[in-house]
């Protein structure tokens, strides 16, 4: 039978792999962006990013010092007797020491840092139940530089698609050089204020080379991505061809009187990782096989 210790062990290994290596789709987009830059300053920025990715993998070191706060998405089988939450929390504590991760989680008012990335509601875990027999744990270790550029707009239905585009453009412009471009934009459209924000982050869990299943949404993803890449903000905001590596949208039906739109900005280091833990304790890392 699975124990908390199994969950902890898998969480530590998941965090280690996630902060050291990027998922294949993001790494591929970065290498393409490097190849596309022709001017000296953006080329130098992209070269540093690519060299850093290689060096992090070679030395098994976190690619960025900002290993984020740990946000988890967990899918449980219908029958699950192990205390997954306890296992994850202990895993975060252990990973902070062993990987190591930077202790980032602080009290929002006193700014006291307990040093282990564990505190009130942190790590934050989103729960789901699925029809599989394994436990699936996905983590995003996202830095604050990009998270700080995220935004919510409560648009009116009359503002419509134009309003959505206007908000996306203004958010990318306002973020400018700050979120470590080339970035990935996650958008959540519809639902309610909180649901759109949640969807914006979940949009970042989808590989950037996979379009939304809804053709209207997929069209908007492509149109916005192409348009933003005409801005010339470029790598690190120092000018250049690639401002965005990708743009993903998730949506939900919303009230007939509202149109919430949320944007979650992800730096180039789009770190997400998944582990599947089978009932016999075997683990698989679909995003990080290496």
């Amino acid at each position, binding site marked *: 039978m699975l124990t908390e210790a199994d969950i902890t062990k898998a969480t530590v290994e998941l965090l280690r792999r996630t902060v050291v290596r990027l998922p294949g789709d993001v790494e591929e987009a970065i290498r393409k962006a490097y190849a596309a830059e022709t001017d*000296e*300053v953006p080329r*130098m*920025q992209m070269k*540093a*990013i690519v*060299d*850093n990715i290689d*060096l*992090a993998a070679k*030395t098994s*070191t*976190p*690619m*960025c*010092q*900002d*290993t984020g706060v740990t946000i988890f998405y967990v899918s449980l089988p219908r029958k699950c007797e192990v205390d997954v939450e306890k296992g994850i929390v202990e895993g975060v504590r252990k990973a902070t020491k062993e990987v*190591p*991760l*930077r*202790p*980032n989680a*602080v009290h929002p008012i006193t*700014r006291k*840092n307990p*040093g282990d990335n564990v505190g009130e509601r942190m790590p934050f875990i989103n729960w789901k139940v699925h029809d599989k027999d394994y436990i699936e744990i996905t983590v995003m270790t996202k*830095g*604050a*530089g990009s998270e*700080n550029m995220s935004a919510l707009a409560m648009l009116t239905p009359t503002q419509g698609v*134009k309003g959505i*585009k*206007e908000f996306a*453009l203004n958010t990318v*412009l306002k973020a*400018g*050089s*700050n*979120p*470590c471009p080339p970035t990935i934009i996650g958008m959540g459209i519809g639902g309610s204020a909180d649901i759109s924000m949640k969807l914006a982050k979940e949009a970042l869990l989808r590989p950037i080379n996979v379009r939304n299943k809804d053709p209207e949404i997929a069209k908007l993803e492509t*149109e*916005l991505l*192409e*348009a*933003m890449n*005409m*801005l*010339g*903000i*470029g*790598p*690190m*905001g*120092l*000018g250049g061809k690639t401002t965005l590596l990708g743009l993903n949208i998730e949506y939900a039906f919303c009230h007939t009187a509202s149109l919430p739109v949320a944007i979650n900005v992800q*730096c*180039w*280091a789009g770190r997400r990782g998944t582990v599947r833990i089978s009932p016999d304790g075997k683990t698989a890392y679909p995003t990080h096989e290496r």
Partner: protein
Amino acid sequence: MTKMPKRLKTPLAEKDVRALDLGETVYLDGVIFTGRDEVHIHALEHLEKGQKIPVDFKGSALFHCGPIARKVGDKWEIVAAGPTTSGRMNALEPQFIEKFRPGAIIGKGGMSQPTVDAMKKHGCVYLAITGGAAVLAAKGIKSVSGVEWFELGMPEAIWILNADNFGPLTVAIDAKGNSLYAAVNAKVKENEQKVRAKLGLK
């Protein structure tokens, strides 16, 4: 034409700082201090209360960075040390430059006009290092000679780092009032019109 990269040693002399041109590549040797949000707040509060701060920032390179550090035996070593978003320090940086007179600020994302002005007035430059490239940056840090204000937490403390060929750094704001970010922004403003047309926006 591309200039040869320059190698400078801290503490920096004002005349060397003022001689740096926009877009030039620089590598640093010598001591580098880290300092971000809390260091700015605490240093200025200390000054206001007439209290001493533990390091001398004059001519120094102040790195907007909260590293991952690991203690091996009784010695600290740096695991990863990329820059943090400098924009968060916009509100306090002009005053910090005026009072503590650093020669260079290392970060990412650039800084706003009041900081550009303070840099011109007091002889300081902004050196951009690639955000997120933390393992690469740590390669240029030979050792840690100490840490001050550790009670602020690992990311917010002052780490005293010994740099050896730390870089490449791009002079993104010089001491003459020029900013690479301002130049890019002007270009982006132009491009915005094309983007608006493509998206069917006014």
